[in-house]
Structures are given as structure tokens and as C-alpha cells.
């Protein structure tokens, strides 16, 4: 199957609501940091953008715009203690099994099997879609997030947009 053309679909959807076309960031090049450790020595963290929050905290706004909220996800908390609030995608399956979108149980198993060094002390949920003030992401929210990863000794980040 051909990949879905999300740029066209999203512009059609939000255009019908009266929004101007969303101008996606378009980058001709990408930054690069070499992997310096083998996976069995790496501390791995994950970041997901799908409105996932712990059931004891405030849910994400499912229709959020410019929401710079980023929650820490405790990898030791059972994966069925999370809730999902995001109108941007179909999370029917992820509601039943978080691992469909954020595979925290699977990553823990790989750590226990020695395929990675360790699961980071925190995973992350935030940076939801419909962010129009991207300069604030690049200048503030994302650097603050990177600081947290460095504080946790993270060697590799798996980013999961939804």
C-alpha cells in the first residue's frame, strides 16, 4: 500500500475548518551524532507525542494547539496505568495496549535480555501535534528536554511521532 499523504490530508481537514495551510518545516540537511557505544551498553529513552499521561495526572488536551507540555513516563509503572487524549490519530489499540505506540514493556524485556544496556529512568510524552510556534520548540522546549536526557545519562533516544 502507498503511504498515506498526511500533508495533503491535514491541509484538507484543517482548511475545511478555516485554517490557513500548515507550513511544515522543510530541512535539506540533518544534524548527526555518532553512536559511540554498542547497544548492550546504551541507556535508551523513548519520546512519544500522542497525548499519553499517567492516570493520576491531568489528561492532555485532545485538541491542543501549541502545547509544550512534556510529561515524564516512569518505565516501572505498569503500562495499563496510562490514558490517552489526542484527537489527532486513532488510539483505539494503544488504549488497550500502550505497547502498540509506546513499547515500554518490550524495551524493558530487551534490557533484561541484555540487548540494550538499560532503560532510562524516564521516558517522555509531549510535543503534541499542531504546534505553530516552532521557534519556541527549537529555542526553548526541545533544549530543556535535551537537558533532561543528558541528566539521565541517555545514550540513545527513540522518537515516536503520533
Amino acid at each position, binding site marked *: *500500500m502507498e*503511504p*498515506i499523504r*498526511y*500533508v495533503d490530508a491535514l491541509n484538507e*481537514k484543517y482548511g475545511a*475548518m478555516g485554517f490557513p495551510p500548515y507550513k511544515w*518545516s*522543510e*530541512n535539506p*540537511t*540533518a*544534524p*548527526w*551524532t*555518532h*553512536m559511540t557505544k554498542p*547497544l548492550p551498553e546504551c541507556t535508551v529513552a523513548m*519520546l512519544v*507525542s500522542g497525548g499519553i499521561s499517567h492516570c493520576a495526572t491531568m489528561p492532555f488536551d485532545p*485538541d*491542543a*494547539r501549541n502545547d509544550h507540555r512534556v510529561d515524564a513516563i516512569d518505565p516501572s509503572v505498569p503500562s495499563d496505568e496510562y490514558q490517552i487524549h489526542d*484527537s*489527532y*490519530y*486513532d*488510539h483505539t*489499540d494503544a488504549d*488497550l*495496549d500502550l*505497547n*502498540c*505506540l509506546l*513499547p515500554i*514493556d*518490550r*524495551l524493558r524485556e*530487551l534490557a533484561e535480555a541484555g540487548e*540494550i544496556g538499560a532503560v532510562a529512568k524516564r521516558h517522555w510524552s509531549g*510535543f503534541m501535534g*499542531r504546534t505553530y510556534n*516552532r521557534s519556541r*520548540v527549537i529555542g526553548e*522546549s*526541545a*533544549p530543556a*528536554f*535535551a*537537558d533532561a*536526557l*543528558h541528566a539521565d545519562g541517555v*545514550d*540513545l*533516544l*527513540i*522518537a*515516536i*511521532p*503520533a
Partner: protein
Amino acid sequence: MGLVARVVEETGIPTVTVSTGRDITALVRPPRSLFVNFPMGNTFGRVGDTARQTEILRAALDFAVTAEEPGVLVDLPLEWDEPFVYFAGEATPEAIARQLKK
């Protein structure tokens, strides 16, 4: 999300992005992208399919090691087992009014 991966990479931590939106990822160009042609929200597969979830997670980890070219985008050779379409979300008048208020 791709922008965040780029910023994190610039600070010295390697990133791998596992995406279900190929066209968006190709534009934003995170450092390393693995495209999974599954419905958005099912990046790692179906409910309870632990083998597939692990397979895709392991592919992402291995790709972090083997990728060599900044901005590389690789298609994971997996097919969803039924056709799927763009998820337009709630389209009730109330939902649209709620979104327009943002």
C-alpha cells in the same frame, strides 16, 4: 517531533525516529528515520502482538547503529494486514467548534 529529534541530536545524543507519516518525516528530516507503513497510533503493531512489537523496536535500535548518513529515511519492509485510511478524528460540529476556539 522531528524538530525535537534534531535538537536532541545537536546536543550530542543520537536519535532514531520511528514514523508512520512518511511525507511529513521526509520534509522535517530527523537525523535517522525508520518508516513503518502502519496506521498512525499503531507504530509498533497490534494489541498483544508482542513479537511484532519487539521486532519493530529491535529494528529501530539496530538502525540506530547501522545508519550512516544524516537525514537517512529507510522503509521498514512490513505491510499492515488490511487497507487503512487517514484518520480524520472527530468531525462533529461540536468537535470542530471546539478546535476552532483554540
